[in-house]
């Protein structure tokens, strides 16, 4: 029998959850209708934010549930971008089809990569993935057809093949960003609610316990590594379609695609779907406020990440959750 205060608490969290769902619906509708109300500059900013959201969801799935801390996910952003440019420029594949194909190609590369990287554990794995990303960067610079070390621009004719007008192209690109971000959230959610998700949450909570209950930890980690590589590469391919230009430095940037993404996830809350969403909103708000500060903004960001680790390493959403705040995306199973 529930006590009175428990019932009150239950009711309060129910109201909070309804409010949360309301906020989420408003956010979804606002983003889905953004081309109607946002200007060109705002749309570009939203596209960038949605791309970072997808990258953050992928990193969060990898680190938050399997404990694989990678500092080398820029490998897949870069590979996605480069495979997309190669497919779009040197084959007859239509531009919009080249993006998912590039992601699959990067996924194929992730299989042998995982085999090598998994020889290292913990912190060694983190740095090992970074070395591998550097190898891809240095190899990418060796292809003169793709601009070598100085990079290459996407031919105008290819961009025009997406839609006939400039606003048409921007509309298509915006909805691609929107669907990539949405797909990243929903696929993580669906995965976590499946049998695999049960294994993943078990691994997150205790690896020895999960192994003793029959979870094949290595296989689960391998699968998640390859899946997040595909998702990261898909986002990477889109990012460089939007940028229209790719260079090895930009494509395989550790600061942009690893440091910022990791800060977003950890500040928002690792191991939750809501955390990366909060992290991205905060990251872009701060960037907007501090755009003129340049290096000082980056120094502040580093300090913020350190502060989160010192004050409450569960991040913003984790701290809320610990105080009884309900989830938006329910992934845990409860006994009633």
């Amino acid at each position, binding site marked *: 029998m529930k006590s009175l205060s428990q019932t009150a608490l239950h009711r309060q969290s129910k109201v909070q959850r309804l409010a949360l769902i309301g906020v989420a619906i408003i956010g979804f509708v606002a983003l889905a209708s953004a081309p109607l109300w946002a200007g060109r500059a705002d749309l570009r900013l939203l596209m960038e934010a949605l791309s970072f959201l997808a990258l953050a969801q992928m990193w969060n799935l990898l680190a938050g549930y399997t404990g694989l*801390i990678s500092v080398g996910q820029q490998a897949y952003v870069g590979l996605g971008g480069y495979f997309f440019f190669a497919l779009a420029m040197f084959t007859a594949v239509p531009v919009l089809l080249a993006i998912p194909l590039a992601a699959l190609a990067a996924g194929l590369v992730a299989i042998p990569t995982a085999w090598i990287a998994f*020889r290292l554990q913990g912190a060694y794995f983190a740095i090992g993935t970074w*070395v591998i990303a550097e190898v891809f960067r240095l190899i990418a610079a060796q292809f003169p057809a793709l601009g070598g070390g100085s990079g290459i621009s996407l031919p105008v004719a290819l961009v025009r093949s997406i839609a006939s007008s400039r606003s048409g192209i921007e509309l298509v690109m915006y909805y691609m960003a929107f669907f990539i971000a949405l797909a990243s959230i929903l696929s993580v959610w669906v995965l976590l609610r499946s049998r695999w998700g049960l294994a993943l949450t078990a691994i997150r909570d205790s690896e020895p316990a999960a192994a003793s209950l029959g979870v094949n930890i290595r296989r689960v980690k391998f699968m998640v590594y390859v899946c997040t590589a595909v998702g990261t590469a898909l986002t990477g391919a889109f990012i460089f379609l939007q940028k229209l230009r790719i260079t090895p430095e930009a494509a395989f940037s550790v600061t942009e695609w690893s440091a910022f993404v990791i800060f977003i996830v950890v500040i928002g809350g690792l191991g939750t779907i809501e955390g990366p969403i909060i992290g991205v909103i905060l990251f872009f708000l701060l960037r907007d406020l501090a755009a003129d500060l340049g290096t*000082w903004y980056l120094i502040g960001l580093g300090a913020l*990440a350190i502060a989160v680790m*010192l004050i409450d390493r569960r991040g913003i959403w984790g701290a809320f959750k610990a105080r009884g705040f309900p989830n938006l995306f329910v992934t845990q199973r409860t006994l009633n």
Partner: protein
Amino acid sequence: MEWINVIVQGILLGGLYALFAAGLSLMFGVMRFINIAHGDFIVVAAYLLLVMVMTLGLPPVVGIGVVVILMSAVGYLGQRILLNRVLDEDILPPVLVTFGLSIIIQNSLLEAFSADSQRVPSGNFATASLTFNDELAIGVLPLAMFLAAVGVIGVLQFIFFRTALGRLLRATSDDPEIIPLMGANNSHVFAIATALASAVVAVAGTMLAMKTNFDPTIGPSRLLFAFEAVIIGGMGNIWGTLAGGIILGVAQTIGAQIDAGYQILAGHLAFLAVLIVRPMGLFAKAKG
């Protein structure tokens, strides 16, 4: 003959990489923690020497001494004030904190010294060389640095295996939970380890400053070289780390000899090859 020269240069370069690696390996060995900002600390030491020599006008040898003392003190305090608070079973907090430090250091150096490439002049020393014949010449400065690197690694080996402090560090590495029961203070032991590692980092950074040009962004690649030397040599083996550094250095100079663009790539590929063939490194002493 040309190739002998390439290999000799690679070995000399390897001494510097072994120094980069020794500090990283020491901290990991005692605390099971990898400092992502390791390379950036090396660059900080290089800039400190620049200030000592160019701004304060100290002779390089005195400057190196001051930098070593400064860096050790900062290492001790940094460990006690910041890093000890995030050390535990979970590897993410130290990775994230040192990642944050890396970004802070790079951008602070950028703000203070601009993105310009710098170098600390070391006078006649820098250009003098021992000429054996037309094709083989060994620079006095690289040779002195190599010998210093071997010396520093020898001193570390001595401290670890012949002194009471070394015994304490090794015991803490083996079981950090039991050692405090014997009366040791882990916070202090960890901070001593970091101070020692920072002294090695200071020597490595000041040598880097005299050997090549540097700028605020080169830290991360120094971290990767250090890491590769540790893994190639095998964890937990100090002389193995020297061998790892030399193998990495030789791989890089051979790569550079084939094509200037292959220098770094060749080093990375040598590392991956060792990882595939012998994941525990070439000279690993212990498993795990």
